[in-house]
């Protein structure tokens, strides 16, 4: 009896403790606002600036903003599971050009057209949707409906170290070919001096190694799939492009290339360890910033290299903001979207951090602004022209059934791209040949496409 009384007393303590915990749990930790929206985002430099300026938005509209910042892949999984289960955990999701059409098709994002139609004429004119770079808008649309607004955009281009080129008596053309790049890389490669001819991504992943490789395949006249959705990984053009890419890295590239992604190559370029780098235009600002780059004054810019065709030789990507279909604060979310992607926001960033730091690749007006032209003079025209000419609907020599420049706009591509680049990492490391890796990949991709119902 005594024991059971004690047990009851203990149970009481437990219940009391839980009650206290419930109280603690429901305690709010942020300031109260009539409406608070939650944004799922990545920790890219421009996004950090956005977070630091959010108080301006809250002050203007009285809408609180919470951020959930996660690594790109974790964020994609989390937001996908949230929208798929209708969780309503996030009001705004940070999405890439690859995701938008797929998510729109799945009705995970809401179309922004009705919200734009509701805007007053003065608000619509102030926002000026047509000023958003047309190809970027196209990439963020599905069935002629806009589903996201670009926060910053990028294409790809060639970075080179002018000092090293001058010392070797070399001159980088404005529009180089891959053959010229390979020749330069061979001449400038001096491993004994810890200096490499070129840095290219070799880190497995559809968005890492897969992105520049696909642009090389495109410009060599290859494609991932033909019009019947048959994988083309063992086609002569795909093989030639992949062999070229892998050979270039193995002969004149960075050591340990299978662990080199955007960040590693950017670091190598900023430290003067590599003579060339072909990658995202968004790195231009960082590479020319003396606080982040040891070779800020020596960085030169050229268009992305080409081979057989200029089509698909440079990519198109934007990190964008879309309103989740399960959001309970869609009006407030739309207000944030139009604030964070507005001309006024760009001016706000310029006033705080200077024109060189404004989000690039979103608005044509940014590239017409004299202050921006002055701050980003060395690369602004290459970036704008690259973005204007990168066409996700026409990125290969032959006709293909998919959209996307550096990716194939189907849900299965995340898996396919990662799988193939994992196989090719073996070729980069020298444990297998490119042809063998591609033959294996062709069989694997064929199986995936059959399982997904593209092939019979």
């Amino acid at each position: 009896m005594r024991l059971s009384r004690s047990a009851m007393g203990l149970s009481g303590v437990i219940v009391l403790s839980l009650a206290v915990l419930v109280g603690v749990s429901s305690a709010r930790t942020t300031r109260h606002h009539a409406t608070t929206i939650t944004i799922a985002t990545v920790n890219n430099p421009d996004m950090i600036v956005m977070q630091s300026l959010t108080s301006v938005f809250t002050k203007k509209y009285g809408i609180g903003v919470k951020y959930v910042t996660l690594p790109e892949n974790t964020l994609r999984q989390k937001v996908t599971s949230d929208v798929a289960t209708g969780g309503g955990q996030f009001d705004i999701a940070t999405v890439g050009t690859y995701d938008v059409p797929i998510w729109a098709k799945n009705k995970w994002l809401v179309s922004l057209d009705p919200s734009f139609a509701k805007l007053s004429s003065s608000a619509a004119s102030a926002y000026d949707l047509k000023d958003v770079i047309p190809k970027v808008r196209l990439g963020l649309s599905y069935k002629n409906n806009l589903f996201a607004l670009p926060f910053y955009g990028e294409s790809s281009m060639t970075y080179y170290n002018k000092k090293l080129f001058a010392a070797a008596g070399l001159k980088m053309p404005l529009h180089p070919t891959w053959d010229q790049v390979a020749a330069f890389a061979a001449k400038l490669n001096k491993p004994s001096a810890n200096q490499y001819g070129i840095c290219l991504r070799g880190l497995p992943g559809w968005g890492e190694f897969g992105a520049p490789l696909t642009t090389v395949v495109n410009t060599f006249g290859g494609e991932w799939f033909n019009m019947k959705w048959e994988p083309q990984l063992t086609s002569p053009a795909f093989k030639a492009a992949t062999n070229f890419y892998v050979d270039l890295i193995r002969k004149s590239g960075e050591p340990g290339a299978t662990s080199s992604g955007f960040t590693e190559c950017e670091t190598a370029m900023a430290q003067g360890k590599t003579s060339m780098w072909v990658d995202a235009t968004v790195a231009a600002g960082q590479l020319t910033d003396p606080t982040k780059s040891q070779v800020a004054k020596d960085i030169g810019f050229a268009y992305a290299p080409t081979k057989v065709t200029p089509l698909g030789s440079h990519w198109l990507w934007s990190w964008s903001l879309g309103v989740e279909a399960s959001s309970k604060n869609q009006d407030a979310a739309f207000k944030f979207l139009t604030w964070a992607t507005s001309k006024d926001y760009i001016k706000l960033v310029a006033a705080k951090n200077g024109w060189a730091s404004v989000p690039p690749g979103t608005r044509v007006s940014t590239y017409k602004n004299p202050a921006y032209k002055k701050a980003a003079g060395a690369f602004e025209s290459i970036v704008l022209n690259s973005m204007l000419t990168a066409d996700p609907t026409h990125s290969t020599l032959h006709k293909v059934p998919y959209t996307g420049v550096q990716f194939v706009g189907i849900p299965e591509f995340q898996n396919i791209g990662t799988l193939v680049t994992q196989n090719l990492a073996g070729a980069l490391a020298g444990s297998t040949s490119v042809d063998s890796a591609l033959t294996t990949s062709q069989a694997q991709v064929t199986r995936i496409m059959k399982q997904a119902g593209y092939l019979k």
Partner: protein
Amino acid sequence: MSAVAQPTVRRAPRRRRPTPAALALNVLTYVVAFIVFFPILWAVLTSFKTEAAAASIPPKFLFHATLDNYRTVFSADYFLFFRNTVILSTGSTLVALLLGLPAAYSLAFHPSPRTPKVLSWVLSTKMLPAVGALIPLIVIYKRVHLFDTRLGMILLYGAFNLPLVIWMMRSFFADLPKEILEAATVDGAGFLRIMTRIVLPLTAPGLAATALLSLIFSWNEFLLAVNLTSANSGTLPVFISGFMTSEGLFWAKMSAASSLAIAPVILAGWLAQRSLVRGLTFGAVK
């Protein structure tokens, strides 16, 4: 017979010269300790570097120290995540102890023929990888509105740490001489009095070790936290992972966040070092 007190001459104990083998063992111990400690040291050093210096190859041991990374971490809602982590780990440890101590007591002092099976069952709940239960947990938590709440995470971590508490505390309780408890019962002491006056004081080092381990497991847990929390109840491991970026350097900032996240646990472990070691070795030698 007279006893003459002789002044005692105390000789200083002769210091034995360490043998080469003992010296080698000593050096080896220091080397192993340094290797184990090096990642933490490197994270702390990196946290004071600029991003460019943190990413430089070969690594820099001499550099201009900066506090910029710590400023960035503090301006990125560190305290919200820190508060969540403190509440979640202490709350879940409390829940696990409140439920686990009576269970361990019962299993140790009132065993039944089924006790071994009960113990095996308790342990078997730890055998399922957490990821195996993840999707059902997400769905259930969303339905019962425990998703992204501190209460939900406290209950979950409490449940995950319960087997640890039951198993550890049962072994500590089982080492107590039963005669003491019988004597206390004869003297009229009830369950609570026996627990608070006899059992817990005698097993205090074990209790401290169990509580600390439970606290550390909850503090460091990532998989459940990243999937079951969002803007409201995220913990420090989730906060650290948020510094990863596909575009730009992040090692120095991430190291600063890591240093700030592990500091309280290292401090707690250091302060409770004696109890922890005593508790973990309690009953190990019989």
